[in-house]
C-alpha cells in the first residue's frame, strides 16, 4: 500500500472474512464477516453459548478458526508461525471476566508481566529483578487505574474491582493497539462493574485503542460501543451503529 493510499483509506485494525468455527461436529458460528476501524469500540452481544468468547479468542489466534480469514493489525493469522503470532500479540491484550491475575505474586509483578511480549526473559518475571524503567512504567499504569498505593500487595488479597483494575493496567502497560475484553465486569457487583467499564473506556479512548468487548448488559453495549455486533443462531445477526439502536432492538437477540 502506498503512503498516499494509507492516508485516504480508512485503516482497519480487524478484518474478519467468512469466519467459521466448529468444536468437533458442533457448529458454533458460521460465515461471520466484519471489519473494525482504528480506535473503534465494538460491542459483541448475544445469548449464552452463541460463541462470543470463542469469536474473541479467534481474533488473537488463541483458538484456531475452522475456516475463513482473520486479519489483525495488518497480519493474517490463519496458520501463522508462532513467532509471527507473538509479534502481533505484542500489540494486543486481553481483559477477561475472571481478571486472571497470578494470585501469589504482587500487584506490581502482575502489571510488569504485561511487558513480556516486548521483553522476554527472567528480568521481567518478577518486580524484584525488573529494570527500573519497567517498574516505573508499571507504577504509572497502576496510578492510571488508581491503585498505585497497592503495588506491593499480593494479587489474591484484592477485591474483585481492584483485581480487574490491575488486569486493565497489565493490559495497557504494553501500549496495545487492539484490546479484547471478554465480559470485563461480569464477576463484579453492579456498582463496581459500572466503575470498571467507565474507567476502562476512558483509558482506551485516551490511548486510541481499538476495542472489542462482550457484555450481558444491553446498556453497556449501547453506552460504550460505537458499533454493536450481534450473534444469534450461529450467524452475525446484527451489525449497526450504537446510535441507531435502542435497548429493545438488542433484547431480541437474547430470545
Amino acid at each position, binding site marked *: 500500500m502506498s503512503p498516499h493510499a494509507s492516508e485516504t483509506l480508512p485503516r482497519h485494525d480487524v478484518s474478519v472474512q467468512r469466519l467459521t468455527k466448529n468444536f468437533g461436529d458442533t457448529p458454533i458460528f458460521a460465515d461471520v464477516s466484519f471489519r473494525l476501524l482504528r480506535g473503534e469500540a465494538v460491542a459483541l452481544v448475544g445469548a449464552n453459548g452463541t460463541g462470543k468468547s470463542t469469536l474473541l479468542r479467534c481474533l*488473537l489466534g*488463541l483458538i484456531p478458526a475452522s475456516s475463513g480469514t482473520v486479519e489483525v493489525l495488518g497480519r493474517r493469522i490463519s496458520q501463522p508461525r508462532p513467532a509471527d503470532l*507473538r*509479534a*502481533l*500479540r*505484542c*500489540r*494486543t*491484550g*486481553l*481483559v*477477561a471476566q*475472571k481478571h*486472571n*491475575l*497470578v*494470585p*501469589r*505474586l504482587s500487584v506490581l*509483578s502482575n502489571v510488569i*508481566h*504485561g*511487558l*513480556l*511480549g*516486548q521483553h*522476554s*526473559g*527472567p528480568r*521481567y*518475571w518478577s518486580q524484584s529483578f525488573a529494570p527500573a524503567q519497567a517498574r516505573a512504567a508499571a507504577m504509572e499504569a497502576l496510578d492510571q487505574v488508581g491503585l498505585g498505593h497497592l503495588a506491593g500487595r499480593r494479587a*489474591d488479597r484484592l477485591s474483585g474491582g481492584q483485581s480487574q483494575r490491575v*488486569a486493565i493496567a*497489565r*493490559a495497557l502497560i*504494553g501500549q*496495545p493497539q487492539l484490546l*479484547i475484553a471478554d465480559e470485563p465486569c461480569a464477576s463484579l457487583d453492579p456498582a463496581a462493574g459500572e466503575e470498571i467499564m467507565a474507567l476502562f473506556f476512558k483509558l482506551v479512548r485516551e490511548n486510541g485503542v481499538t476495542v472489542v468487548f462482550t457484555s450481558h448488559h444491553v446498556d453497556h453495549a449501547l453506552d460504550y460501543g460505537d458499533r454493536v455486533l450481534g450473534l444469534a443462531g450461529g450467524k452475525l445477526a446484527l451489525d449497526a451503529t450504537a446510535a441507531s439502536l435502542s435497548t429493545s432492538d438488542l433484547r431480541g437477540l437474547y430470545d
Partner: protein
Amino acid sequence: MTDISSFPRRVERPSALAFLGYVLAIAIVVWAFQGAGFSLDKVLTSPPRFADFMSRAFPPNLEPDVLARLGRKMVETLQIAFAGAVLGVVLSLPVALLAARGLIAGPWINGIVRNILGFIRAVPDIAWALVFVVAVGLGPFAGTLAIMIDTVGFCGRFFADDMEAVDKGSAEALTATGARRLDVTACATLPAAAPAFVSTALYALEKAVRSSTILGLVGAGGIGIELKVGFDLFDYPTAMTVILMIAVVVIAIEALSTWARKIIIGEQR
C-alpha cells in the same frame, strides 16, 4: 393414593454385563487368596508363635550404648532421606516441565518423559538401592541415589500433573500480550502450581523417610542394617528397639510435614 408399582425399585436389577463383572471380581479374589498361600490353619496356629516372639522381644533393648549406636544410624537414615529427597525434588522440576502437556514441550517429548517416569516408579526403591550398591558400592551414598531417583519418578509425574491442573486464565492473558511459552510458564503456571508443589514435595519427603529405613537391608546405608542383623542374630530386643524407633521417627516426620504444609501454603486452602 399413588400407585406403588410406579415407584423406582428399591434395588435395581443388575444388567447381564454388570452381573458378569461381579462374578469375575469374586473369582479374582478367590484366585488371589489361593495363590497367596492363605491358610486358616496357619492363622490359627500363629498367635502362640507371635506371642513367643513378642515375649522374647520385650522389653526392647534400651542399653545406653545400643541406643547411642542406633541413634547414630537413625540420624544417618534421616540424612539419606533429606539429601535424596532434596536432590530428587530439584531434579524433578525440569523433568516435570518436559512431562507437562501443553506447556513448553510437544506431545512426543511429553510421552517419552512420562514413560520414563513410569518406568522409574515401576522399579521398587529397594531394587534401585541394589542397583546403586553395585554402581557406587555399599553405604549411604547408594541409598541417597536410590531415594533421589525414586523421588524423581514420583515428583516428576505429580509436579507435571499439578501444572496441568492450574487455571489456564492467567496463562491465556499473558499469551494474549505476546509472551513466549517459557515466560508464560515461569510467570503464570509455576506460581499457580507452587502450593501443590510444596504439598507434593513434603509428601515425597515422608515417603523418602519411610523408604530410607529399609534400604539398609541391602547395604545402602541407614538403620535397616540393624534390623536385619537383629533378626539374623535372634537379638529380638534390639530389633524391637529398631522397629519402635522407626515408627516414632516416621510418625514425627509425618506430623512435622503436616504442620509445615499448613505454615507454608497458609490460608489459601
